[in-house]
């Protein structure tokens, strides 16, 4: 599983997550290769989304959620260290949610918000550039360049999701977490997002939770299969989908359960 030639953006070790008394993640260790796409797949309730949310500490807002284990970014930064403000962590690890959740403000405001609060830009023209570049990278600029001041909730679902991606990359994170980003979209919008993921991986490490095995096989380099809070199998996507080592993985990808 460990390949010494690969740079890892994020290494996790012995991760346990509890919701109250209920165990959601049971001793998972996963390393995510830099500038590649890693898919987390598994049946509903298997803990893949929980695990993803540990990576930018979104679980912290859930009251009775307890996270244990080590999360090391770029071999140096401990994500759960008290010295690292959660806000700085999320500047480095962005997130795109299952349902497009643009702020009910203008398209421009949506993308400009992150750079503004982090003080990334020092002038209005610089901010304009960041907004333009982010929208461009998200493949949305051409579609919305004439109506940047329109309210973002008026966009179509697929456009909204790409706007959320633009919003996530506006603060130049190193890692982007995507929690089933296409589950609320139609096939055409989904295709666009997948194409976008392929382009984005040149600059970002992407970790994506998906229900669609076809999507996992199309976009990702590595795939991790979760079941009942356990990491069942982790490896190259091509291997997982063709000859998995584990019988459960085989059953799942062939549609026998899940």
């Amino acid at each position, binding site marked *: 599983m460990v390949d010494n030639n690969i740079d890892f953006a994020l290494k996790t070790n012995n991760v346990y997550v509890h919701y109250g008394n209920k165990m959601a993640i049971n001793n998972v260790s996963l390393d995510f290769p830099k500038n590649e796409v890693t898919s987390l797949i598994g049946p509903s309730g298997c803990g893949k989304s929980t695990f993803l949310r540990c990576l930018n500490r979104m679980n912290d*807002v859930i009251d009775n959620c307890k996270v244990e284990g080590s999360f090391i970014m770029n071999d140096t930064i401990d994500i759960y260290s008290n010295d690292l403000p959660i806000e700085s962590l999320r500047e480095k690890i962005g997130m795109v949610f299952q349902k497009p*959740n643009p702020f009910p403000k203008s398209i421009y405001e949506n993308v400009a918000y992150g750079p503004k609060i982090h003080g990334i830009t020092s002038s209005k023209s610089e901010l304009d550039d960041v907004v333009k570049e982010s929208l461009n990278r998200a493949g949305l600029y051409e579609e919305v360049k004439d109506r940047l001041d329109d309210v973002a*909730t008026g966009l179509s679902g697929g456009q909204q999701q790409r706007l*959320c991606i633009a919003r996530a990359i506006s603060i130049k994170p190193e890692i982007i977490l995507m929690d089933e980003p296409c589950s609320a979209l139609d096939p055409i919008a989904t295709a666009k997002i997948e194409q976008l993921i392929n382009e984005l991986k040149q600059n970002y490490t992407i970790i994506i939770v998906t229900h669609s095995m076809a999507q996992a096989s199309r976009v990702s380099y590595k795939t991790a299969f979760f079941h009942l809070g356990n990491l069942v199998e982790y490896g190259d996507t091509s291997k997982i989908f063709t000859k998995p080592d584990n019988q459960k993985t085989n059953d799942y990808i062939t549609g026998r359960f899940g």
Partner: protein
Amino acid sequence: MTNIKKRLNSERRFKFYGQLGVFLSLLFVTLLMLKIFTTGSGAFFRTTIEADVFFDPAIMKVDKNSSDKEIERASFEALADSVVNNNFKNLSEDEFIKVREMFTRRFDYQLRDYFLNNKNDFNKTVKMNITASSDLDQIVKGNYPRNVPESQRKINDYQLAILDDLTQQDRIGSTFNFWFFTNGDSRDPETAGIWGAIMGSFYALMVCLAFAFPIGLFASVYLEEYTKPGKITDLIEVNINNLAAVPSIVFGLLGLGMLIGVFNMPFQVPLVGGLTLGFMTLPTIIIACRSSLRAVPPSIRHGALALGATKTQTTFHHVVPLALPGTLTGTIIGMAQALGETAPLLMVGMVAFVMEIPGGPLDPATGLPSQIYLWSESAERGFIEKTSAGIMLLLLFLIVMNLTAVLIRRKVEVKW
């Protein structure tokens, strides 16, 4: 077959009960409105008596070059007496008093106000419509019966004869009673106005808003966004809901005991009245704010948090602006409720006889509902129509406020 018939019958029956309920409630509202309007509409008009007024230099002891200050100090009281004597010749002393009673006691003020605006009428005779006394006004409007023994009438036989005489000469008129909208309270119904009470209520509501809105907003933001659910939060929640149901007179007692008793704040002033109304409105505002904060989808918060916004940034950049329309609506409805509350005003003394228009929250004042209460308690027949007219204005303000709340909600409603 019988079963379906039974079911359909019961369906029809329940529909009928519902319609009956709606009809009855509409009927009562209509009757109430009808009563208020028929009683109160008279207050918007006042009866006048046409009289020749000679602005006599000998009596006034001023001339048209005198300053306004000097004119204000001139003896318009004596001028009014001369007007009575000139228009009704050869009155004995007793008859003079009776005729003078047919005019308002503020006769002199009316002459003075006219003269200040028409100084060129100095040393001339002009026809003026002088406001009649309230008792005469009520007789003319038909609110007092005429065909009862003299001892049961406010207007005696001599005055009635003069009235009939004047009516025949077409000198009894009616004019729009703008005094009702511009004056403060008065002992005389014909000059009593509601403006003092409106300003009193206005200052009290401003104090109430300035006190209750920020506290309510921050309290609800803290409870909704920052606290973790638990026993203490539950306890606070239950208490807030209980407070919202506490009778207003209890808040009145709180205002009396705490603000006036402990903090030695003055009696009768809108500041204290407003704070007391604020205590009462606070739970309403907190409940409304919390429910509108809760209506903001968590995905908005997650979106901002995932971008690295702090909790405070998330709250004040995204959640509060989105909750604001609901917050404002709740606040306006709370204010409307406060506007109509009488008991707290009674307890803190905003129910006194105040003639002056309050110039600020520290001047003695009454409020709109307490003014209505005061008038309804008055013995004078002329105050009955004032009471209804006051109620009409109060209802108008309530309707305007509630309508504003609805419009705000419609206008800024966010679609997710």
